[in-house]
């Protein structure tokens, strides 16, 4: 939590009152491996910051297959923003791939934070812009790069993550079959 406060302070001036309020609306929670923070279909009103561990968000299509949208490791934010913004049931399930510690915020409390302490908005905007950048990159990479190039970028973006993930998690993140992922890995070993 202290790390987050320091990060906020490095970008904006956070008054003692605002800092105290921010502390009061945050909750550090430990989740064991395989537990779910959000389940597809449920109401969502929480946003999470990962402080330790590894999480995955995915949707399940009409045929029952999972498609991974995002992995979240230390310092990554994760939630189902569609569900929060549109006030509808979750499209995503968010599960812990390892024992994980997160800081939980109620989305309404964060909104209240912006009303009470408008200076916080600059930090909120920074987080959102970083999130949009990450999503834009992901879409563009998906459109224009080969599977092998996408895999390279994935490894850059999530170093060491392969220790915690199953092959089908990564294959479904890259939008390829598990066989293709195995082929790509074999080719990389040969090089």
């Amino acid at each position, binding site marked *: 939590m202290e790390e987050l406060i320091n990060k906020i302070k490095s970008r904006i001036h956070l008054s003692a009152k605002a800092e105290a309020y921010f502390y009061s609306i945050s909750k550090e929670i430990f989740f064991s491996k395989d537990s*779910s923070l959000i*389940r*597809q*279909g*449920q109401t969502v009103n929480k946003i999470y910051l990962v402080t330790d561990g590894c999480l995955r968000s*995915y949707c*399940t299509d009409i*045929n*029952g*297959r*999972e498609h991974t949208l995002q992995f979240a490791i230390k310092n990554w934010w994760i939630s189902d923003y569609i569900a929060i913004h549109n006030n509808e049931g979750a499209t995503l399930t968010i599960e812990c791939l390892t024992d994980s510690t997160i800081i939980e915020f109620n989305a309404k409390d964060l909104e209240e934070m912006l009303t009470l302490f408008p200076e916080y908005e600059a930090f909120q905007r920074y987080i959102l812009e970083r999130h949009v950048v990450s999503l834009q990159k992901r879409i563009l990479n998906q459109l224009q790069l080969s599977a092998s190039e996408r895999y390279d970028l994935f490894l850059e973006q999530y170093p060491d993550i392969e220790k915690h993930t*199953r*092959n*089908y998690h990564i*294959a*479904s993140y890259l939008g390829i079959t*598990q*066989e293709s992922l195995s082929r790509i890995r074999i080719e990389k070993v040969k090089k």
Partner: protein
Amino acid sequence: MKALQLVQYGEIKDSLAFKEVSKPNIQANDVLVEVKAAAINPIDTAIIKGNLQSIIPIPLPSTLSYDVSGIVIEKGDQVNEFEIGDLVYSRVPQEQMGALAEFVTVNSMSVAKKPGNITFEEAAGLPLAGLTALQSLEYAGIKENDKVLIHAGSGGVGSIAIQYAKSKGAYVYTTTSTDNVNWVKELGADRVIDYKTEDYKTIVKDADIVLDTLGKNYTLEAFEVIKQGGKVISIAGPLDEESAKMFGMADYKLPEELTQLCNAKEAKYKYIFMHPNGAHLSEIKTLVEDEKIKPIIDKVYPFADSISALTHLATGRAKGKIVIKLS
């Protein structure tokens, strides 16, 4: 809800009817599953024909089928392992038989989350055959470098048993017909024996385990190919004495010929009767997600064509599972 029910014993075309029945109720340990797909197995056609009336007495009419995948939509007070919305698969216990319906109630002990990397249709094809393969080979204590003969590698049980045995590091022999040799090889079997052109008894020597999925002569012949102290596991041969007791046949004796063969080879003979088990299905889920086991689907039928699906199954020519899509 709509259900396909067995209304009388006999030929498939004369014995089944789609009926509107009430949605099943759940008990404290049950989940109610909205069925997405159900799979059919040889046991279903045997039930329809009335061949199993003495061992599996069921009231008529009854909804058919055991293999299911779908979504948990209700759960009993005592169920902690599952939540509403979980995607699951199961081999439904005998007393809850009825997967060919819009909803089915299942004891949560028999349920597992479905593998995330396959469809509902693929998942529905796994439970009965997968549990049979796993429980047979686990009973035999399968381990790395064991030599295992699996009969009928293209069948529902055989195709999964080959993959399960390979995941344990065994050397796998399997038998199949010429048409199936190539795709059975792709499942990972080390030596695929085309029974139309080769005699497996001259190829397989000193096997640690034989998985007999065919019965009759194959059960007896298994003792020709196993090593001294080997194991013959059967899902189609005669009952062993322990299994017979479970069915209330206290005075049952293993056929004399089989007893002699067991003694001569100091071998173990065991008849395996698959039992529903959620923990075993979770093990299969992991193997499927790691691509150690791939479900093999012959054909997916819409619910309205279930009777055609059962007729197709009865021909015995399916290569992999026959699945029925509910919604």
